[in-house]
């Protein structure tokens, strides 16, 4: 299908035509921050944004999610599965790093003998409209983790912001069928395509943070016990902002929440974080990761060592949220630098 053009003024039209069929999620301003919310009015859509505070991950994997509901009838328990998983979702205006995170999440939740049906069903029913990132932030490093500010592959429909208009490309079949519904979109001209490519190039060049993660993975694998971890974890206060805002963090806790007075309840999962001491604390009191050093290490190892070894990709999309969110500025770039320093130093030793 040929590329189309969407006028910025027509977003309202787009919304009103799609909102009936889809639960329409879009970036919108909540308490001064951009968040992906189910909107009820096209005016709420805020496409001129750097990136959302909480990643759109929470549309498909919300902080609090019902796994199933139950009812007690005497000694019997009746389990009710969720019925809303078949709803069609539209996630509009997602940045590419976050779009890529959906792929990572999908791979993770689909891996192994047990598939996370809840996430996967939602993912299956979700159409993602990505938007190219014309001006990445200093803290962004998507290209280092296999992404790109204009990486279209992980979206269904891809938009590039050309100023007054968006260039609209259908990437997947889902995307194509969606665009068919928007027959009023005009065709794109060649110049639009060129401009989009130009913007992509500019964006890529604007990315200053670059890492050699192959090397990072290698160093990590070899240096689990290295004293650098002490240094890395020193200033960490264990606040877990990094994991709560991370688009690829998936850890969760399972809790039964009861409606005491009506004989019913729901089993829910809520985000958990490996930065919390309680995360691994066993009932016996034993804790495999009792200290900050182990917890900090686990996060880094998980993303850059365990992920590659288990799923053959990095567990990071380079959105830079953990970098900006860290209140003590113990940010990923510094950590990676310190890790790579190990290699440099040992390299020096070898050459010396």
């Amino acid at each position, binding site marked *: 299908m040929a590329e189309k053009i969407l006028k910025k003024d027509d977003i309202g039209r787009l919304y009103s035509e799609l909102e009936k069929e889809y639960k329409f999620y879009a970036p919108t301003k909540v308490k001064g921050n951009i968040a992906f919310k189910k909107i009820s009015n096209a005016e709420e859509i805020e496409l001129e944004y750097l990136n959302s505070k909480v990643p759109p991950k929470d549309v498909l994997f919300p902080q609090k999610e019902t796994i199933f509901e139950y009812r007690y009838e005497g000694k019997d328990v009746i389990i009710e599965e969720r019925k809303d998983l078949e709803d069609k979702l539209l996630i509009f205006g997602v940045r590419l790093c976050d779009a890529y995170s959906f792929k990572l999440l999908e791979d993770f939740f689909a891996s192994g003998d047990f598939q996370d049906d809840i996430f996967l069903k939602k993912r299956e029913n979700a159409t993602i409209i990505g938007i190219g990132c014309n001006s990445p932030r200093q803290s962004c490093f998507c290209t280092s983790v296999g992404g790109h500010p204009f990486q279209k592959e992980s979206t269904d429909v891809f938009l590039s912001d050309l100023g007054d208009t968006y260039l609209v490309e259908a990437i997947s079949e889902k995307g194509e069928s969606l665009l068919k519904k928007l027959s009023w979109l005009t065709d794109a001209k060649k110049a639009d395509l060129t401009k989009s490519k130009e913007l992509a190039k500019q964006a890529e060049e604007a990315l200053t943070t670059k890492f050699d993660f192959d090397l990072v993975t290698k160093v990590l694998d070899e240096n689990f016990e290295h004293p650098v971890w002490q240094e890395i974890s020193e200033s960490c206060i264990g606040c877990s902002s990094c994991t709560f805002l991370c688009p690829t963090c998936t850890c969760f806790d399972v809790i039964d929440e009861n409606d005491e007075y*009506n004989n019913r309840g729901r089993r829910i999962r809520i985000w958990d974080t490996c930065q919390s001491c309680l995360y691994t604390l066993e009932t016996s009191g034993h804790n495999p990761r009792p200290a900050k050093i182990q917890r900090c290490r686990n996060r880094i190892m998980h993303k850059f060592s365990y992920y590659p070894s288990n799923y053959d990709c990095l567990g990071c999309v380079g959105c830079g949220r953990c970098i900006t969110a860290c209140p003590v500025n113990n940010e990923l770039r510094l950590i990676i630098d310190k890790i790579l320093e190990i290699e440099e130093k040992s390299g020096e030793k070898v050459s010396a």
Partner: protein
Amino acid sequence: MTEPIVETKQSENKEWEPKIIAFLCNWCSYAGADLAGVSRIQYPSNIRIVRVPCSGRINAYFIIKSLTDGWDGVIVSGCHPGDCHYISGNLVARRRFAILKELLEFFGIEAGRINFMWASAAEGERFAVLVRKATEIVKKLGPNTKFDKKW
């Protein structure tokens, strides 16, 4: 939740009556409530009494949990200052309650749902009067729904 509960909420056609949990010090107010009973002093049937050793035992958790759990009001009653069976438990508690009450007010949670009082073992009448008063205050505030969860 594993427990089947037979009762449901009060039938709707009756006038709404608040349910108030009352934590009473074993040594004074609980005995005062007993005395109200022995003296057949009548007061509204809205309070449910929980015996505690001393008002000093009342952690803020108990009070706030009572609210989040849907009790419409909370009464905490202890010994008059100076009369604490445990020397000073009520005085320490008084500070705790003062802060809690102010904070609730600050958060915009109806502070009137929480009523602290002193009543000695001899003050059956006073106990009844204060319970009446607290019940009225809570009744005026209406059902406690701020902490209801969506189901």
